[in-house]
């Protein structure tokens, strides 16, 4: 019984459907400035509990983790609110952390993966807050044309979305590559599902980018991102990329 309770607890923090709905409900009702904290701490708590519990994780959790990730990746395709989009992407990526947990990867790597996956999502939450301040909502297809209206902001937004949807050389890319390598021999079907999840992330990312940056410039004058903010985002993204390469060196 305690084993089951521990698994249920981990399933909330490394989301497994239907417990995954807890995270998205919390996110929806949370104040914008606390969301950053939520995105950083949530998966780390999951990894911490998983590593410190003594339960044996049953193999049937692997298909459940993959199904959760696939479900949220598909649902991501039609989301238009950026915070909600980030929450669903987080659910889809964090649920895959069950794979290295089941495979028994080292604690350092698990924390590294969890952090590497969460940092682009945190940046996206910050950018969504910036859009809400400027336009009243962070919503795709509502105003569009950010590339012409606030080009610096659009540039950073595009790069962060690219990082979030597992594009080289960011950590999530190497995580996905490693997972495919680890599953291909033992469970080839899992490797195929992983690739489809990856495809849906790219698809959703492209839809998000198109819904925000494409279109004519706004007639209203809207403040673009400051140089200081650009420097902050650039440094974080460069560190993230270097972290990705470091993780790649450790796992591949």
């Amino acid at each position, binding site marked *: 019984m305690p084993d089951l309770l521990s698994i249920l607890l981990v399933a909330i923090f490394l989301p497994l459907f239907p417990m995954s709905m807890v995270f*998205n409900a919390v996110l929806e009702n949370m104040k914008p400035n606390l969301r950053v904290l939520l995105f950083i701490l949530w998966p780390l708590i999951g990894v911490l509990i998983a590593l410190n519990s003594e339960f044996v994780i049953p193999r049937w959790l692997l298909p459940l983790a993959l199904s959760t990730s696939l479900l949220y990746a598909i649902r991501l395709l039609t989301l238009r609110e950026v915070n909600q989009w980030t929450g669903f992407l987080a659910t889809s990526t964090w649920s895959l952390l069950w794979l290295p947990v089941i495979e028994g990867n080292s604690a350092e790597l698990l924390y590294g993966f969890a952090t590497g996956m969460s940092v682009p999502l945190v940046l996206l939450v910050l950018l969504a807050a910036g859009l809400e301040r400027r336009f009243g909502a962070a919503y795709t297809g509502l105003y569009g044309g950010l590339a012409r209206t606030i080009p610096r902001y659009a540039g950073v937004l595009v790069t962060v979305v690219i990082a979030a949807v597992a*594009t*080289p050389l960011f950590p999530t890319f190497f995580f996905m590559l490693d997972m495919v390598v680890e599953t291909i021999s033992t469970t080839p079907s899992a*490797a195929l599902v992983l690739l489809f999840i990856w*495809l849906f992330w*790219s698809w959703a990312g492209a839809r998000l980018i198109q819904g925000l940056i*494409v279109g004519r410039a706004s007639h209203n004058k809207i403040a673009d991102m400051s140089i200081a903010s650009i420097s902050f985002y650039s440094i974080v993204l460069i560190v993230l990329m270097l972290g990705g390469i470091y993780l790649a060196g450790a796992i591949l």
Partner: protein
Amino acid sequence: MERLIIAVAVLPLISALFIQLFAGRFGRSIARLSVAMTTLSFLLSGLLLALAISGSENLAIPLGSSAAVLLFDPLSTLLATIILGISLIVHLYSVRYMAEEAGYGQFFVLLDMMTAALLFMVIAGDLITLVISWYLVGVILYFLLGQDTRSQTAYRFAFWTLITYRLGDFPLILAAALLFNAYDTWSLTIIFSEVMANPDAHQVLGLPLTDVVAALIGLAAFARSAQFLLHTWLPYTMDGPTPVSALMHAGIVNAGGFLINRFAPVFIHSSEVLHWIFIVGLITAIFGSLLMLTQNDIKKALGYSTMGQMGFMIMECGIGAFSLAIYHMFAHGVFKGTMFLSAGGVINQAREDDGIPKDELYTFAVEKRPNKARYPWLLMAVVTLLVPLVILVFAHLLVSEDYFQKQGAIVLLFFGWVTGAQLIFATYKMRSQNVWRLVGLSILSLLIVVLGYVFISHAFDQFLYPDAAFQAQLYSAANIDSLSFDVLVVIVTLIIVSGWGMTYFSEQYGHRRAQKSKRLWLNFYALISREFYVSDVYSRLSRTLLRMSARLNVWLRWL
């Protein structure tokens, strides 16, 4: 040597970084930096190519202490030079062409990044670098095609390209994962030497690993080189800037041919994969050419023409003529790049003069009235069929006496013969003051083209695959048993000859064609004009998926 090859790949990256950082300060003159860096990189790659031609040893250069390795070999140096040559022309063209566009600096950043990604792809000596660069080419192309951020249409079709490219990434990633699990290394050199030493050492799901990997590599190449069913992105991506179209059609789309060449040691140990590659290439060549002929939009026609050419290139790989595919990609790249870059001039010219000839060709093609006067038909038929055959046989015998021992060579010869005959036939159909002079000139140009083609492709063969035994293995991997081969040759000959016969009879007795057959042709034309409904099916599938996604969100209350 090590520093030279690293510099070739890194210079465009440095240029991209500088432009990104200093575009605001230097304005539009920053493009000169991009041109200068590309020129320097091109010159260095030319030097590397010269070293490779002079017989320098192949090298695998590790990047620091990482698993990343860069290759110095004939294939990588040749393709790096071709990529940089085309990229340099596109850079020079873009300096003025893009001057009025917003995001001028960003365009050169993307162009430099694309050049770097392509270079890393061709010089990658390990699977990770190959997968990363292969992946990044698709992502960067998406943004290059969407350079005009006001255009929803440009992004819509850029999205199609991105998704097809992502689908093409799958098989390459799977192949890389399988090879790593089998050989416990990412190094291509080590993997290939182990495959050559013991090709049957590993199995996947009861199948030989070499077969599975070859099939996956083939699939990855199909998506990148717009093979049938994965082609829909290519003819529609014309809303991007013209230099991007030129780069795409002249360089990026050829990546499939490169990938198959890179994995040649795996393909020679795969049993039937090359036959499937040949069939897919053949279908693509036929469908691409057919769709090209029925387009009324010249840019879409060019897109389908590229699809047809890619079909030929993949087909060449399927018959074991790997080096010929590389020559084809080079020749087609130069040809198609020129066409795209001169498109603006042609449009200007067309504004002054529509250029539509009011002669028999016009009445035949547009008004559908057959030409009446003809020179002796039988004589022309003999010239049409025999002259190209004699030229081709003669040219091939000059380079290699045992040429006709290879099935692949005979297939190539066959296609050369059909193409040559078609050229003379088309010339004969044109109205001219002196038809014999026109036919004579066509034969002369055919002779020059065939001789040039045979000698250059022979040189490519010697340079890329100097080991005669390896070359022979490539051809024999593509062979089928003699009886099936002979039967196929006879069937295809009959189809082509009956096609010519039909053309003749429709010219002679076209006006008597029955109503039923007219309706059949009309239905066929309708099918082609809808491009075989392939795009429609894909659009329907993606709409269904999006509807399902939205329904799931509603059912689960957006949580």
